């Protein structure tokens, strides 16, 4: 397994370089260093000299990819791409365009992100599985059909609608919880509502998908045999069907776990949770390439870790699977 992990880690390097190049090209197609300087310096009383100064300060005074005024290796090393991207591989994210240390910001903001994303993920997963199993228990009945109709309705409604309705009723009308915000001293008060909304809005998609997985398993010979042996329906679902349906569930679930650090863009923004999701959104709005680049890089690394973990989890879920 170790050799498998090492091999996959080495494969990740060209992927990360590719992601970096892509982010770099996409960003600079839209924003030139001059545009970035203007966005940060403001509209009033700005001269070309001020813009040049800003670019020098931030290291954007060099060519993007190839520096034709240099010779040898410096042709590549004395460029914006080389100077900004190479450091990412040692997790040195440098400074944001407003001068703040990105690593310090990420360390601070990942905790509120996790405080929301982790319980939302776990509670959501458990509820989705339980609801799907419950529906399977009544498969073929009217209850099953009604449940599927409800799932489809739930997944058809926009995420924003859940947020607005949730905030309107729970926080504004019934005054049960704060409408938004986050205090590290009492986070639960602020997280109950977003988690509740996150879970409810996810039931439609999650439970419907898992129902399909379970339905397939429920019709197999081993399930029929278990039933014939007198196993109760609940025992059958949780002890036999659930473990056998784990592989497709893990495929979708484990890959998400590392990315939970990255936060939830919309949820964090609407509920004022100072996490990494809103950090990324703010950076895009303010054309801060240093933050965008760092967050995309971290996202890629976490995604690759997620894929490796998924493969490893297969060996746990199904002993027949061997990584080689």
């Amino acid at each position, binding site marked *: 397994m170790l050799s498998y992990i090492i091999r996959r880690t080495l494969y990740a390097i060209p992927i990360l370089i590719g992601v970096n190049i892509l982010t770099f090209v996409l960003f600079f197609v*839209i924003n030139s260093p001059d545009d970035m300087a203007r*966005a940060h*310096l403001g509209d009033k009383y700005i001269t070309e000299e001020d813009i040049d100064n800003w670019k020098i*300060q931030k290291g954007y005074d060099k060519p993007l990819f190839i520096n034709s005024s240099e010779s040898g290796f410096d042709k590549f090393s004395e460029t914006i791409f080389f100077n900004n991207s190479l450091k990412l591989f040692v997790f040195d994210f440098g400074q944001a365009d407003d001068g703040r240390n990105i690593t310090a910001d990420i360390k601070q903001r990942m905790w509120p992100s996790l405080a929301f994303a982790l319980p939302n993920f776990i509670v959501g997963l458990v509820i989705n599985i339980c609801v799907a199993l419950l529906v399977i228990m009544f498969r073929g009945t009217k209850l099953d059909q009604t449940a599927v109709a409800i799932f489809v309705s739930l997944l058809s409604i926009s995420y924003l609608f859940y947020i607005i309705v949730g905030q309107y009723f729970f926080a504004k009308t019934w*005054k049960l*919880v704060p*409408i938004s915000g986050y205090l590290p001293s009492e986070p639960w008060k602020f997280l109950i509502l977003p988690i509740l909304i996150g879970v409810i809005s996810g039931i439609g998609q999650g439970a419907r998908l898992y129902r399909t997985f379970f339905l397939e398993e429920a019709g197999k010979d081993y399930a029929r045999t278990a039933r014939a042996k007198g196993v109760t329906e609940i025992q059958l679902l949780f002890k036999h069907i659930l473990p056998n349906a784990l592989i497709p569930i893990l495929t979708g679930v484990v890959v998400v776990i590392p990315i939970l650090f990255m936060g939830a863009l919309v949820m964090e923004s*609407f509920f*004022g949770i100072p996490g990494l999701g809103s950090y990324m959104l703010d950076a895009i709005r303010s054309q801060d390439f240093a933050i965008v680049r760092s967050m995309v890089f971290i996202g890629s690394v976490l995604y690759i870790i997620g894929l490796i973990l998924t493969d490893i989890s297969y060996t746990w879920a199904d002993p027949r699977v061997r990584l080689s």
Partner: protein
Amino acid sequence: MRRILAILPIIISTTGCIDKPWNNPNPTAKAGEIVYYSSFSLRPKHLDPARSYSTDEGLFVDQIYEPPLQYHYLKRPYELIPLTLESMPRETYLDANGKVLPSTAATDSIAYTRYTLTLKKGIQYQPHPAFAKNEDGQYLYHFDSEHEGRQYTTLYDFEETGTKQLTARDYVYQIKRMADPKNLSPIKSLLETYIVEFSDLNKQIKFSRENLKDKNSWIDLEDFNIAGLNIVNDYTYEITINGLYPQFKYWLAMRFFSPLPKEADRFYHNPGFKKKNISLDWYPVGTAAFMLTKNDPNSEMVLERNPNFHEERFPSVSESSKFYRFSEKKLPFIDKAIFRLEKEALPLFTKFSQGYYDRSGETHANIGSHSFDQVFSFGADGIELTPDMQEKNIQLEQDEKPAIYYTGFNMLDPVVGGYDEKSRKLRQAISIAYNDQEYVDIFANGQGKEAHSPIPPGIPGYQEGVKGYNPIVFDWEQDRPIRKSIDYAKELLAKAGYPNGRDEKTGKPLVLYIDMSASSSSSTPILDWKRKQFEKIGIQLEFRITDYNRFKEKVRQGNTQIFSWGWLADYPDPENFLFLLYGPNSSAKCACDSVNNTNYDNPEFNALYEKIKVMENSPKRLKLIEKMVEISRIDAPWIFGYTPQEFYLNNQWVSNNKRHGVAGNLLKYTHIDPEIREKNQMKYNQPNIAPLIAGTGLFFALIIPAATAYRRRQKETI
């Protein structure tokens, strides 16, 4: 089930007995502490007074730093008064040889103006580790290596703090900081124009930095001297500017001219501090009423009363004034201000109406379409607060910012530009058709006033009523301006060579283009409205939409035809608006980010501008301004648009809510009655748990039949 139903009324009745609201998003205050709760919507980027320029940053920076002058809180028109100075700066005129001229000297004989500023004695800085000294008088925390300061990760890790007295040296040091290319001050180029030898100072510092191993390390700016800056003694300094620029005194009320002690600059340049975000941009150090004790722009900013704040009192007012109970009372009135980041409008307004924010906003009123109907209704006397708001005794305060939103014609454009009679008539016809009051009523909830000139209300040169209306676009009837008819506009269009909106030579329809950025074009109703304004006189309108960067580039290069723009003045002087139409300030001419985006260039207007620019406000100056306004109306390079008039809401326990269009240092006047707030928060926020109980009941109502069905199924036999 019966038991559950039996206890329901008991549970519901207990909800009225809670001792603290469940939905309070604010942290608990210490006993006896007067805390002001509010919000900010944009993460401040810079808190360094050499760098910070935006109004949003001013919410914090202006409460911490003290420039030499400030605006009188209550007087209108706006009036400058000393803040840290003993009296207003003394102005001395000098000729080219540096010889003092009498105050009556002819304008063209004045080569320089010297401002002499004398400070009040005994003003102290807030407690700060930069000033902490050991028993030998050595600074405790001025390090030479990263290793020495390795254990400190935030400013609050330092055990010792100190203070120092405010001196003239600190003010001069800060002005020099703006010449340092490292600090990227947004007004560096402006200061180069005015302060004598300021550009030389910039070159000297730049040269010194180039010779440094680490180009960002500390340089003692006291080693650099120029003729424009002079320290007379500990409490007096002089600034000498080129020629005559009476508006310079307004700059002395801006945060750029706040004091910055050398000790603080040295402290923040400790090796390795920048990496830990210990910088002046993050932890300001000032002499004003408040100091920043928590800087978490991701969620919360906290200002606390500066224990070393010098004596300052509320302005003296007469008994008849509504401010009388505060007259000459010592400032500030609050101990702490907590500002929470609020990006979304709905949560912000909800928290305000629940009493958790004392005001609806600080730099923006935040009364948008989402909340307008909850706040305002249209009664017999026009717009008024809804009964719900009146019941809560919400206080309404109108804010008239010295700002204008206009639609500009690119004067270099072959169709809408130019100075001949035909092109003038085309622009005038469009100005008549383009009804900005309608725009304000529909899209800005009526929070704005149609403009009749480039000068907004509150600024000298602005005139109300019959004297101030624009006769090119309006007629004066029944004591109010009435927009000229569309038929008249069509007549003008015909005279311009486009009868019925068609080119008289080619017969082709006249198609005009509005250039705009993608973000401002996102509202289809606004685009439709704009199109309809042009259609009224038969002109077809197309939109050229690009991203914001390209849009700005087009404006810079003079490649637009028609575009919308706005201007928020730096200081309350007509010069700061009329320079938007001054020919040499043309963006296309310099291919730079200048202020005259329409590239308007009328020699008569330019000559008048050059005169009023160097004049103090006087009837003579106002006469010249009147002439300039008249020229701009006839040439019509702008559709004058509207001036914003936002309504801010204040909860009943907040006093001194008077808005000031220019000044930012208003927190010190804010007064809170915490007892009334607490009582009302309880009243507004009684939780309603009936839906929770109903939800639980529903859950069981679903589960029980399911469980029964399951049990029945388990018992089924074949």
